């Protein structure tokens, strides 16, 4: 695990740099003021959450095809990290929405889909805790990892239809982002991606170590 230390250091440095980019480099939004700063981390977390669940999806398929438990470890680790970033998205969103939209929550397609996503992967993680046999656990979890991810676009489209049939309470502001804001956002996404990689490396290592411990326990028992 030679990669681990450089990645850790890179993640720490990049997150500090991303904080600088968000608070110092990017201009203060004229209408929203300082609260808009949360946007950089909100978007970066959302990106990582979706990416992490995509990784779970890909490695769930790979596990079913190849039966290699390393793939199961990767799928599990990515789902866990994904749900952490998904939680961050769901917390930072309302903090921003309250002063800007006037409500903590609205049943907007993206918000609702993210919430449903959170529940799907919370179920995925719970399921893993409740099955003893490693083989069954990996296979059943892979089924959820695949079906859950395929479901996400269908959930999104169905909720979007639902909201367009009903009047939309909250109108979204236009997407005119200041170029410096865009730079700060892209940098935050990059920093969070490195953080994701650093966390994945550790989490996969923990998963394979605990798999080894289980195997040793079974041999002795």
């Amino acid at each position, binding site marked *: 695990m030679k990669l681990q230390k450089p990645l850790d250091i890179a993640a720490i440095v990049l997150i500090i740099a991303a904080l600088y980019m968000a608070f110092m480099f990017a201009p203060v939004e004229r209408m929203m003021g300082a609260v808009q700063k949360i946007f950089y981390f909100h978007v970066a977390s959302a990106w990582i959450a979706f990416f992490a669940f995509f990784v779970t999806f890909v490695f769930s398929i790979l596990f*079913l*095809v190849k039966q290699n438990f390393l793939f199961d470890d990767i799928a599990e680790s990515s789902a866990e990290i994904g749900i952490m970033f998904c939680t961050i998205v769901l917390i930072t969103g309302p903090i921003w929405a309250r002063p800007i939209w006037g409500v903590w929550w609205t049943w907007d397609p993206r918000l609702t889909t993210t919430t*449903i996503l959170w*529940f*799907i992967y*919370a*179920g995925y993680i*719970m*399921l893993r805790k*409740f*099955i*003893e046999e490693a*083989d*069954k656990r990996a*296979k*059943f979890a*892979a*089924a*959820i990892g*695949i*079906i*859950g991810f*395929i*479901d996400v676009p*269908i*959930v999104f*489209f*169905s*909720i979007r*239809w*639902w909201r367009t*049939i009903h009047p939309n309470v909250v109108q979204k502001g236009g997407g005119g982002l200041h170029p410096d804001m865009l730079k700060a956002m892209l940098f935050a996404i990059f920093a969070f991606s490195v953080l994701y990689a650093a966390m994945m490396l550790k989490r996969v290592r923990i998963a394979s170590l605990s798999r080894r411990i289980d195997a040793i326990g079974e041999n002795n028992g």
Partner: protein
Amino acid sequence: MKYLGSISAIVSKDVLHELKSREIVVSMLLFSVLTVVVFSFIFEPGSQFKNEVVGGILWMSFVFAGILGLNKSMMSEVTGGNFSALLLAPVDRSAIFFGKAISNFIFIAMVEIFTIPLFMVLYNVNIFAYGAMPVVIFLLGTYGFAILGTLFSIISVNTRTREVMLPLLLLPIIVPVILSSVQALNIYILGHDPADAVKWMQLLAGFDAIFTVVVFAVFDFIVED
């Protein structure tokens, strides 16, 4: 045709078993009617907003009762070791799955056939005022529920907590089914433009088709031992 033969063998086994015991359909039916009755307390009698929520109440009663029935149906397979025996049979594994899914579909459909008229009387709404199209909603919605519900009930009964996992896994994933079925039904209850309902039914049909293929593809992998 051997594939269809295996499916129909499983379905007739389940239907025969159910005709003898009547455990699944009767408990589901009682529960779904009970849900319809209990949910009437959420609004004033004769409230003008009633028609906007009754479609949702009907579907929720099917979803709750369906979860109850799916667990019961799969538990009786697992407790006797019957499910493992079925998997040993020299037939395609997915045929066993679709057999179970179709019997679950039949059981839930039976419940719906009895619940819907009672619901229409109790809430004073006529779902079929504009023709028989809502039948298509019930068929498509129930199929989508049954296909994923059957897969997740197999997963759920294999966990330490048994039936607890089924609603936790199933409800978030079938959000599109619940949403489309309720929205499509509401259009008929409120007398809106039926063209909008067709859009929702297409989404239901798409959901059903996608997950039939996905389950067909993964089922062999997840049950082999």
